[in-house]
């Protein structure tokens, strides 16, 4: 998870996030190399301008022209090949999906809908809302959006979204009112929630933990207070969680 005073990306919880980070680091390295080379060349050319005849070296220099055509082309090829690798690795799962979750954006909270079919073919499904913890003191007697010790303001929610670790699943994101965007950087997922559309995104969490995110599309005055909290649990816990909720209903 993200930590106080951290200046880098949060910890990865999925292959998609790791690959995105890998791509970022590779492209950043190439960028640094290009920037250094160009700045050095520019400084050399400008500072040696007073020496008579120096700039003639750059005129009709075929070797130099060949180099500054071939090297950038090679760098672009390198970036493109890495981008395509990451793009296609983040696509569909090879395995069939084991669970589905429909995420609905509202002004200004999220609704999570769970669905899973057990080995006997029985359907398990339920839904719950997820509000940010904003209050220090409960406003009403049944108010459960109160911050307790250890909770993070504007990141923790009263009912987090639960997904299993190591099970390929599918998220279906939609909205009931305006456009929202469900985004968790630690899982490498950003899906726009558009009313009338049901956007699909494959998900496969690789480690157990808690990941945080925010709504990424300006959706109204309280856009800042609809955080996303994802709890990644072991498959056995997830199965228990699904069946427990069903019995309670």
């Amino acid at each position, binding site marked *: 998870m993200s930590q106080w005073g951290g200046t880098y990306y949060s910890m990865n919880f999925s292959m998609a996030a790791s690959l995105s980070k890998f791509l970022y680091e590779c492209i950043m390295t190439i960028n640094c190399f290009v920037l250094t080379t160009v700045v050095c060349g520019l400084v050399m050319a400008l500072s040696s301008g007073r020496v008579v005849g120096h700039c003639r070296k750059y005129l009709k220099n075929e070797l130099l022209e060949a180099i500054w055509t071939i090297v950038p082309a090679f760098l672009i090829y390198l970036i493109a090949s890495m981008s395509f690798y990451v793009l296609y690795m983040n696509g*569909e799962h090879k395995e*069939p999906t084991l669970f*589905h979750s*429909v995420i609905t954006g509202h002004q200004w909270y999220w609704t999570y*809908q769970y669905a899973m*079919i057990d*080995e006997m073919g029985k*359907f398990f499904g339920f839904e719950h809302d997820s509000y940010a913890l904003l209050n220090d003191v409960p406003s009403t007697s049944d108010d459960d959006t109160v911050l307790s010790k250890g909770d993070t303001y504007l990141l923790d929610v009263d009912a987090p979204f639960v997904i299993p670790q190591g099970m390929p699943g599918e998220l279906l994101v*939609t909205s009931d009112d305006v456009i929202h965007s469900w985004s968790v950087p630690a899982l490498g997922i950003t899906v726009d929630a558009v009313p009338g559309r049901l956007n699909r995104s494959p998900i496969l969490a690789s480690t157990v933990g808690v990941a945080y995110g925010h709504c990424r599309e300006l959706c109204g005055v309280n856009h800042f207070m609809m955080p996303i909290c994802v709890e990644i649990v072991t498959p056995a816990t997830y199965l228990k969680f699904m069946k427990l909720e069903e019995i309670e209903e």
Partner: protein
Amino acid sequence: MDRKVKDVLLNWDKSVPEEMMEEYKVEYKFDGVTPQPFDARFTTWNQMRLCWQNFADYQRCIKLKGKTYEPCKWFSNRYLSFCPAKKRNKLHFLVEEDAFASGKRPPPMLLEGDDGHDEH
């Protein structure tokens, strides 16, 4: 021709040889969960059509075979997994009001004497 199609569609589960069914069984297993395969009819990122299609199929299935028929559960599981609550409530409302056109009657090819062209 018409009757043949109807027979195949109504008894599809009996018409496929068992060896063939064995061959197409999903091999990927996870304890306690039934995997759901990718639906190649809906390859786009927008899956709203999949939700509607499975709901319509479920309504047609229970119209033809009754609610107790086990394979109809496949469609119901599928639409319950995919439909957002708002859409699902809207579809249920349409069925209750007898206004869901696609689920009201089976597909035209299954209705006898519905299509005059095939009779001669």
